[in-house]
């Protein structure tokens, strides 16, 4: 019985992870977006310095 529970848990865990990875593939930022993020973080610091 415990073995089947383990198999069920395994199935559940892997299914959740597969769905999570699939959704993350769609959500992932592109390298260009990452570049923009870094530049905007550093630009905002430059503006704060001027103020």
């Amino acid at each position, binding site marked *: *019985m*415990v*073995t*089947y*529970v*383990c*198999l069920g*848990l*395994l*199935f559940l*865990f*892997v299914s959740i*992870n*597969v769905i999570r*990875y*699939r959704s*993350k*593939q769609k*959500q*992932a*930022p*592109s*390298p*260009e*977006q*990452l*570049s923009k*993020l*870094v*530049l905007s*973080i*550093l*630009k905002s*610091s*430059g503006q704060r*310095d*001027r103020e």
Partner: protein
Amino acid sequence: MIKKQPVLLAPYIKTRFPYDKLKICRSCNHFTVLGEEKCPICGKSALQQVEKRAASKLRRSLWGSRTIVLLLLAFGLIMSQSTMQTIWLALGGTSLLALLWTMQRRSTPALLQIELDKLFRKEAYSLITGLAHDREMAISVFHGGNKTLAYEMLREIGALVHTDQLRIEQILLLQSFVLRKDMDLMLDPLLMDQFDPDLVEYIGELAKIRRDLLKENTFRYVLLHESHILKMEHGESILVNVTSAAVRLKRYMVLYPYLIVRYARKLPKDRFLRLYRMVQSNAQTSNGPLYEEVMAIYNEKYKFDEDFQLGKRNRD
């Protein structure tokens, strides 16, 4: 006038994305774009590329999921009461593990980007202070008298920090060097919105030694601040040099005809010859104000010039 010093600049290494230049310390989480291994804050040889840091964090999380699957599988196998149960679990478990592994391999590039995004957002303050510390280091190197190294450091920081202050500092340092054609120079990243006479002087120098660096952004900047440039001591000669650079490509001739019209008369003979030939061969400019101006200058100054006749005869 400040005496310009001859220098030898190290070549600038371009990266695919600006953040590829960033390194983070494994020990103190300090960000830097300077230095290869040694952290400027804690002194330990613990600097690593941000991508490497994200990859190692991702690897840990992926192994975490795999370990959970393996543990569940092992526990199930230990607790199995019959051969049938063992076979079912072994088959089902390995198939599920293979599925998880495949999905993880497929998603790794996307997961890596997400991990980098998380790292930058979480460590934003550290990123800002890290780059500010880099700039302070460059300034202290400048005060120490090593202008070349100070410029190289500012150039690295400038890949990520796009502020006018940093641009001005780079331009001022460049203006204290004897610029040569073989130097690894740049212009586009140094362009600002506001008028800056040092930037204009730098553009003027580049227009003489590296015309290829003058691109659309530069011509737009020059046109936008033309009236200010004309008020400068050598303003007009700078504009003539910039026009000489604009004559380099047909594209610029089509995009900025009025800049060329205004300074064509003052172009040196070789540049005017190039302009004349381009105007003659380009159908788009064959009846505009540029064509008229070029033909008027040609008739006034070069009608009987051998070089111009030679080109004409060759075409005939």
